[in-house]
């Protein structure tokens, strides 16, 4: 089982292969397309992440003391972005998730490339995942 940081390092390495943001978007689009669809029952208002221009849902559930995330969006780039966060955080303990330092976002330049509006959406995604971590930590 990889640690949160080793997955982040992997993503940073993946992105380092591309100089051009066009290629980075291609990567995000392909990654977004490769992700499965979130079951309709989880596309609830409670699971909605607000602050994004497209609709984004995040569902979390605990299995064997580990927190697993499932996400979807009706915009493919957004789905790719939330998918990256899921790839980094899903399958770790609530404590690890709550305490994680998501340095890959800055390293791959994602935040700089997003308008404040979109960066807010990204912040909202991270916040929601960490809130899940904290909530399950308490249980």
């Amino acid at each position, binding site marked *: 089982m990889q640690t949160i940081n080793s997955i982040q390092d992997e993503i940073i390495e993946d992105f380092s292969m591309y100089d051009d943001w066009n290629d980075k978007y291609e990567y995000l*689009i392909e990654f977004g397309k490769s992700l499965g669809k979130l079951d309709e029952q989880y596309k609830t208002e409670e699971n909605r992440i607000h602050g994004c221009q497209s*609709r984004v849902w995040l569902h979390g559930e605990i299995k064997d003391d580990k927190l697993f995330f499932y996400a979807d969006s009706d915009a*493919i780039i957004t789905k790719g972005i939330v998918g990256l966060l899921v790839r980094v955080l899903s399958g770790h303990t609530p404590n690890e998730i709550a305490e994680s330092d998501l340095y890959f976002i800055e390293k791959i330049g994602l935040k700089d490339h997003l308008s404040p509006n979109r960066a807010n959406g990204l912040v909202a995604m991270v916040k929601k995942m960490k809130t899940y971590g904290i909530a399950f930590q308490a249980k």
Partner: protein
Amino acid sequence: MLDIQKIRTDFPILNEKIRGKQLVYLDNGASTQKPQVVIDAESYYYEHQYANIHRGVHYLSQVGTDLYENVRKQVQQFVNAKHEHEIIFTKGTTNAINLVAYTFGRKFINEGDEILITEMEHHSNIVPWQMLCEEKKCILKYIPLQADGSINLEDAEKLITPKTKLVSVVYVSNALGTINPIKELIAIAHKNGAKILIDAAQAIQHFTIDVQALDCDFFVFSGHKIYGPTGTGILYGKDDILNQMPPYEGGGDMIKTVSFSGTTFNDLPFKFEAGTPNIAGCIALGTAIKYVQDLGIDNIRAYETELLNYATEKLSAIEGLKIYGTAKHKSSVISFLLDGIHPYDVGVILDNQGIAIRTGHHCAQPVMDHYGIPGTCRASFAFYNTKEEVDVLVEGILKAKKMLS
């Protein structure tokens, strides 16, 4: 005829590189860029003429007051208002509509009365009325959209009745570009004894306006959409109606006398202008209006129509692209979607190529609900845009389509 290449040199921002690419600015519906003369007017005022206006006996205060009040005269002439005091400076269109809702609305609209808007309004011409209806138990109704994004005057005839106290309609839809038949709407409103407000946020930069010929009761617009500074706007109202309306905000400038036993309010236009206004912004708005007038509104309109027709033809040729808003009378706005692709994704890919368009609901969610879509991509053109830029947009859309399909 406009010399577009020369005009482009007046707008310094058009030389900017965005993400390494030449900026193609097609978000003029949201806000227009500023010519150097407007930027200079604001800084010149701060550098050489600044002081607070009205009541100051010293030289600078008088200079500032004259400059500021001259813009009021200039706006009066620009929209052909009968009186100078019918021109109220506001922060923008939203502020002007809220002013009318809070003053005219609270005084003259009562329980059971009706306010009529259209289904294509910007949120700023919906929410203030919803808030008023909540408070006063009046009823908000709307003229429905037709498939092409226009309204039907027969619907207006049916919906405007003696119960209607105010009709508040957009001149040009920001989301679809539809130009509404405001002359006819004004006549129908008056026939039924209703007052009418025209939201000209998307019209003032494209059409010659004559509020006396139109005979509308209120007419509002924003400075930043006519190449002027943000935080400036105009409320025109007919003198007799404005005089009957209570003040909006209380404070300095809007009073005659203040004592603890009571306060008397100032005359028009100051009654509605409490506090120190956006002096520099208003002065630069005057410069912006002069800039537009020097180019000639009719020249601008002719050129923008040419751009709209060119862009409509080019975009329509893209397979899987659907244009929303195909009314016969349209302003230079194209709202579109690519089949099966979210508008946000298209916006991101275009942004990466230096092309600025708007994506989303354009603060007109009921329009999106009408079409059952989450939002659109919107390209909106100004006189400094070129056919070459339309070609860049088309290439960008094709690229986005290829990447996202």
